[in-house]
């Protein structure tokens, strides 16, 4: 187990290094006038000089790369390539709790939806339910979560005066230090728009595993002992089918953090890293964009590694190998 953990995190570091090199090569290095590229059209000579100094333009590429990483992760004083140059990293760290709240709540909600849905779909499987499970699983993969969120938000905003929808603020964020209730209410709609889709996919995956487990000899043994079908499902089959789900979870949280969740923030006006990234892309603020991408990438890679370790610990079969 210890070797596995070390190897897994070494691989994660390697991936992060590769990604940072790619980001550097794609965004900073190319072209004849990198400073002009980074600062964007219409930059003042002062901004150009500042950007040139910051990124070490003109020095050898490895030095430029090292400088960028130093500004990003060590001194954390990378400044925006627009205007007077606000510091990027504090802005990202300020936005991070919003993004983490969104992701954490969404994961809890979708695991609940997925496990409950998967158990239910296994228990009442048959000609009517099975196609529905398949269909909702496909919809979960095909419907963009940010679009669903935007539609839900628009619907709630137009029916502002109905008693149910007036409960949910449709925009903005409230820190948990100002009351957990208000924090949760601000996030319910974003959570749900992520959780319903992923929950449907997870229910489908879990059902596939559970149906397989129910044919295993240990399930037959449990039934032979006189246990009820629910008990066989919950106490015996679920334990073996939930590990693949956890392994998947890391991958999905990673791609969610670097994908759909970014736009869900934008849609609901949550001031998280996704909104920051969105704004920086729209305004051509290369430095802020590099900062957001690298921090999101680091988060995604670490979460994935952690989930792999957790899945390993959960899966009795993998532990012995």
């Amino acid at each position: 187990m210890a070797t596995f953990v070390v190897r897994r995190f070494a691989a994660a570091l390697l991936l992060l290094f590769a990604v940072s090199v790619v980001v550097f090569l794609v965004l900073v290095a190319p072209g004849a006038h990198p400073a002009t590229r980074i600062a964007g059209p219409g930059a003042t000579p002062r901004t150009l000089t500042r950007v040139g100094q910051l990124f070490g333009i003109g020095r050898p590429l490895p030095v430029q790369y090292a400088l960028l990483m130093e500004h990003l992760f060590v001194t954390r004083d990378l400044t925006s390539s627009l205007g007077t140059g606000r510091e990027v990293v504090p802005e990202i760290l300020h936005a991070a709790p919003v993004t983490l709240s969104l992701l954490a709540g969404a994961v809890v909600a979708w695991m609940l939806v997925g496990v409950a849905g998967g158990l239910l779909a296994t228990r009442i499987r048959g000609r009517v339910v099975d196609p529905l499970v398949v269909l909702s699983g496909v919809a979960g993969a095909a419907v963009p979560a940010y679009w669903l969120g935007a539609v839900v938000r628009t619907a709630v905003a137009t029916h502002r005066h109905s008693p149910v929808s007036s409960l949910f603020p449709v925009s903005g964020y409230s820190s948990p230090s100002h009351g957990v209730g208000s924090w949760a209410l601000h996030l319910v709609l974003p959570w749900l728009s992520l959780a319903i889709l992923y929950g449907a996919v997870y229910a489908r995956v879990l059902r596939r595993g559970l149906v397989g487990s129910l044919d295993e000899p240990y399930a037959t043994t449990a039934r032979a002992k006189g246990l009820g079908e629910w008990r066989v499902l919950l106490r015996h089959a679920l334990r073996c089918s939930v590990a693949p789900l956890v392994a998947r979870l890391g991958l999905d949280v990673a791609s969610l953090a670097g994908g759909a969740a970014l736009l869900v923030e934008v849609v609901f006006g949550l001031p998280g890293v996704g909104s920051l990234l969105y704004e920086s892309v729209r305004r051509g603020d290369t430095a802020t964009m590099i900062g957001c991408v690298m921090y999101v990438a680091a988060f995604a890679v670490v979460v994935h590694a952690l989930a792999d370790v957790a899945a390993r610990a959960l899966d009795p079969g993998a532990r012995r190998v």
Partner: protein
Amino acid sequence: MSALPAAPAAHPDRAANDPPLAAERPWRDVRRELAHDVSAYLALSAVVLVVAACLLAPLYASRVAHRDPLAANPSGTTIVHGVVTPVLAARHTPTGRSATPIGPTWDLGHYALGADARGRDLLGLLLYAGRTGLLVAGAAALVCVALSALLALLAALLGAFVDGILARVVDVSWAFPAYLLALVLAYSLGIGGLHVGPVDLPRSSLWLPVLVVAVVHVPYVARPVRSLVRALQRREYVRAARRLGASRARVVAREILPSVVVRLLALFPTVVALCLLAETALSVFSVGVRPPEVSWGTMLGSGLVLAPERPGELVASGLLVAATAGSLLLLGSRLSRALDPGVTIRGAS
């Protein structure tokens, strides 16, 4: 793992993690498997319907709408219940003048679904946007599948060392969020276009989203294709060909390639769906398809702005993306189940 008793159907030489492969007459197998598969037919008809509707967009423009859906029409009028109505209603807001486009009239040829912020017929625009979106997604999927197959076959051709490197690279990049990489690439290419050697693409070129979307999905596709190739390499007829003295190149070209091509076709709908979804997200970030080109993604992006007053553009463009991608994913999953139950692409379910 080798100490475990082998499953009865498994070939003794086959590693336990090889995908189970269908028999050697894949076309017949697919036809037989799908002959009574209602969901596959439904998904296929939905895809054909959407593609046909988008292809017929010029017909709609010339015969039904009688104007170019892509041309802005800020001062245009249309007829609603016999009354001449402006397409954009002027409105004064605290930030200045803006206009509310007309909502759905449900009258074919008279802005049936309403107008967008520039007074363009939404229905016609959706059809033309579908052409662009599907073209980009389809081309990206083709490029992506071709690149992946090339990589996997090259690895098979060049032997274990290259194959090992490829496997490592793919395994590592496979877990990285594709959208983040796509965003970085598309942003960078969007600054000045792509000018490398004979390639000279302006920043508004449709080739840029095609290339970006294709490249970031290569690890997704190369991984299953590589395992496919490796499984095929252990097949008896491939080993027999080797023992008969056929060169590696000949074996790859004559024995492996034909089997791979069929199975790539089964993966294709899934890859198109993933590419369509990625293009949509990039366009919402405003670095995918760029104006003056219109795709469902760019419409979804501008629909977000318009949604509080006129949700039509947002709802319709997103529904089309979801329905098309969903049908393609369903079709892809039925096809690959019929062919090779073990080969799946990440993100498809």
